[in-house]
């Protein structure tokens, strides 16, 4: 069975959930071969997880030459493996970093690239929602080794314990790939909440909140649900919440199990970033708000009464 390369998504070695999703998907396409690139000493933290999700093999490159530069070194590693192992496909997660790596791999190997796939069939036909999910497209790579950039939360991760063979990769990163040097990493006020694009539950706030300080209501509900916090364009443009948290056409696209929109009208700008959520709950005082046209459960009311009550109720029922 031919290999399916899976780029391991991790933070300093700690694998992210999407890695388990990609390995699960890879098992349906061929023999999953994880590709781990990171700083020296980070692989040890990923090892058990990769075995748990059924990696048949792990290619390991632990080097400051890959960890210390933007995108290009990892793309060189993957391109080399595409050449050496002739895999069926390459799977990476649809994160900002990995989609750039995937694009470079496709360019290096003269292969077709499909991004934001939500499914890949055993025949290697990918499904994508385009234009914010309003059109569903099935497409196929017609050149080289298919490179699929897969959305987080597209596949339910299923464990399938294995004993992966560790394979070091013999590669010297080229000088041209070491052009963009990471000289420092600066952490900013960490919320402790899940990543917006990976979260199972997202609570977002919009214009209806009226002021930056009222986002505390949204955060409190989010924390009760273990959710990520999002914001509409109106809220980020007003400076009420950081731009990184914007959900919509010009922000992040999310597809959680549950999306709660608080004080968001649901114009196409926002809708394009969240309409593929499994269940949508909307709270808005305007009964004419477009969000009620596609919410699964809509509550017409004052968010300043509804949200604290909902937070208390969720807290109570968690009991």
């Amino acid at each position, binding site marked *: 069975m031919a290999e399916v390369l899976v780029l391991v998504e991790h933070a300093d070695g700690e694998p992210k959930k999407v890695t388990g999703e990609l390995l699960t998907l890879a098992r349906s396409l061929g023999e999953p071969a994880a590709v781990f690139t990171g700083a020296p000493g980070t692989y040890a933290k990923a090892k058990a997880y990769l075995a748990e999700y059924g990696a048949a093999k792990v290619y390991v490159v632990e080097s400051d030459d890959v960890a210390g530069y933007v995108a290009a070194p990892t793309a060189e590693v993957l391109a080399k493996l595409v050449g050496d192992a002739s895999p069926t496909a390459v799977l990476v997660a649809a994160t900002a970093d990995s989609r750039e790596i995937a694009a470079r791999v496709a*360019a290096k190997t003269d292969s077709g690239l499909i991004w934001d796939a939500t499914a890949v069939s055993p025949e290697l036909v990918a499904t994508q929602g385009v234009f914010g999910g309003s059109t569903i497209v099935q497409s196929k790579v017609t050149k080289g080794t298919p490179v699929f950039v897969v959305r987080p939360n597209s596949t339910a991760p299923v464990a399938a314990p294995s004993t992966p063979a560790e394979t070091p990769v013999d590669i010297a990163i080229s000088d041209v790939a070491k052009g963009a040097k990471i000289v420092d990493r*600066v952490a*900013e006020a960490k919320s402790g909440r899940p990543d917006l694009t990976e979260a199972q539950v997202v609570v977002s706030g919009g214009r209806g909140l009226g002021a930056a300080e009222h986002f505390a209501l949204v955060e409190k509900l989010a924390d009760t649900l273990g959710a990520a916090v999002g914001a509409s364009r109106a809220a980020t443009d007003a400076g009420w919440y950081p731009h990184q948290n914007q959900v919509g056409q010009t922000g992040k696209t999310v597809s959680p199990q549950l999306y709660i929109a608080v004080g968001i009208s649901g114009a196409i700008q926002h809708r394009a970033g969240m309409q593929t959520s499994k269940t949508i709950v909307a709270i808005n005082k305007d009964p004419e708000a477009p969000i009620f046209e596609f919410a*699964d459960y809509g*509550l017409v009311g004052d968010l300043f009464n*509804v*949200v604290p009550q*909902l937070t208390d109720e969720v807290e109570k029922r968690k009991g």
Partner: protein
Amino acid sequence: MNIVVTVKQVPDTWAEKKLDAADKTVDRVSVDNVMNEMDEYGVEEALKIKEAHGGEVTVVTMGPAKAVETIRKALSMGADKAVHLTDDSLHGSDALQTSAALAKVIATLSPDLVITATEASDARGGVMGALLAERLGLPQLTQARKVTVDPGAGKVSIERLADNGYALVEASLPAVVGVVEKINQPRYPSFKGIMAAKKKPLTTLSAGDAGLDAGSVGLAGAGSAVVDAQPAPPRQSGTIVKDEGDGGTKIADFLAAQKLI
């Protein structure tokens, strides 16, 4: 500083977008088209760097004849000149082909800095900066929320967005910089700028002029093909309830019934 900034004409952000029924490419005919909103941040950053360090800003785009409207907008914001790669044979090119074509044109301009935005609102690939860096063999400084150029030292550094903050990334010039929204506040074209734009140099290149191999461009040479496309099943509106003082409880009931809490 010789700065190149890429722009793309896209269907209006607020319009309902569709695929062409015949060839499954983005329908650019039945909608209003505008400069990709995020590209305005790229143009603005190019102009700011020029204003700080001197030099020239060249706008480069690939697109149908009417994409010249987007070029005019960039010129009216203050860019100095433009190159428009346009040819019927380019229709349907994917991001990989487009990056190869743009890189070919950009290389002839010998820029110190190539600036792109993060993504276009139609395709939403978010890959053009990385691809141009790959094709041109230049450092990739993408996802930048802040750019600092030091022409004297031949250096450029950025703050690259990360999940929990940012990475400080440095490179030697020339380099490709990809900017995120909110790095700046794009200016509106002034009346004077709009008038001046009409007289600014605009070079129009065909695929042949740019030295592109006819077999490698367009829909036929793309690396992926659409097998099928359908409108997504419309989301049904669900239960709408008016708050009678117990709205929060009612939502919690709904969530519990759906086994979401």
